[in-house]
């Protein structure tokens, strides 16, 4: 068993309305000193076997085809 984390964020050129809404709300709540906030998704994928190259390639394919929409999103993989 191993856990692979897939982080998915909107591409920088796409307006991140959620992140912006949070950034706008912060000063109202008394938080200052934040330059920007971006919001994305985080997936924890538990795989049955070890996180070897073959398994990671599989998860990468999964991220490309399903977990992220590469038209608008970037993703990164890491083993935890």
């Amino acid at each position, binding site marked *: 068993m191993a856990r692979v984390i897939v982080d998915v964020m*909107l591409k920088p*050129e*796409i*307006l991140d*309305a*959620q992140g912006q*809404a949070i950034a706008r709300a912060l000063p109202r709540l008394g938080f200052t000193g934040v330059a920007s906030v971006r919001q994305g998704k985080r997936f924890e994928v538990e795989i049955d076997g070890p996180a070897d190259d073959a398994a990671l390639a599989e998860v990468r394919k999964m991220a490309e085809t*399903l*977990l992220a*929409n590469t*038209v*608008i999103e970037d993703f990164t993989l890491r083993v935890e």
Partner: protein
Amino acid sequence: MSTARVGVITFPGSLDDRDAARAVRLAEARAVPLWHADPDLHGVDAVILPGGFSYGDYLRAGAIARFAPVMQELIPAARAGLPVLGICNGFQVLCESHLLPGALIRNENLHFGCHDQRLRVENTETAWTSEYSPGQEVVIPVKNGEGRYVADAATLSELEREGRVVARYLGVNPNGSMNDIAGVTNEAGNVVGLMPHPEHAIEELTGPGTDGLPFFTSVLKRLVNA
């Protein structure tokens, strides 16, 4: 009633499939229910992907539906010229399937919004819009939470240059769509994706009017003339 048969796909979580079928019937064609798990288009002449939240839209609107068995038949058929209309969730599925460019993301104001929306029909050459007159202004409900159309700059300018924006929001842009885009078509004009819901504007009794009906009569005309 014409003999044209228009398929309406039901995915788990589809909601406006009955409405789409009703619109097809009011346009005097026959509505054929298609099931997500059945990889067979049953010889239909055109297909509608209805609104709703397929698979709950839990991952991303349309992301999981794209892989349904029926889509494995539909995608090549659409590429080969079958008229396909994706409404709302259907539009999202078409983008996820790369039958249409761009993507639909969370509304700029982060709320689901349901409004009677003014639109301008910009392209009347598609399979689904020929019964409108160019530039016609119509009122059709929009209702979505992830309806903001986005595409990269190159795609956007290509869409504009080729006149592939099918309809545009007038007045208030309900979701922050780029260039006020409410709908787009593929190069061939057979595949159309639309965020507004023409199937909710087909009867005086239940809609803000009947401005949506021509989407359904257009395709019929095309099929009868074909």
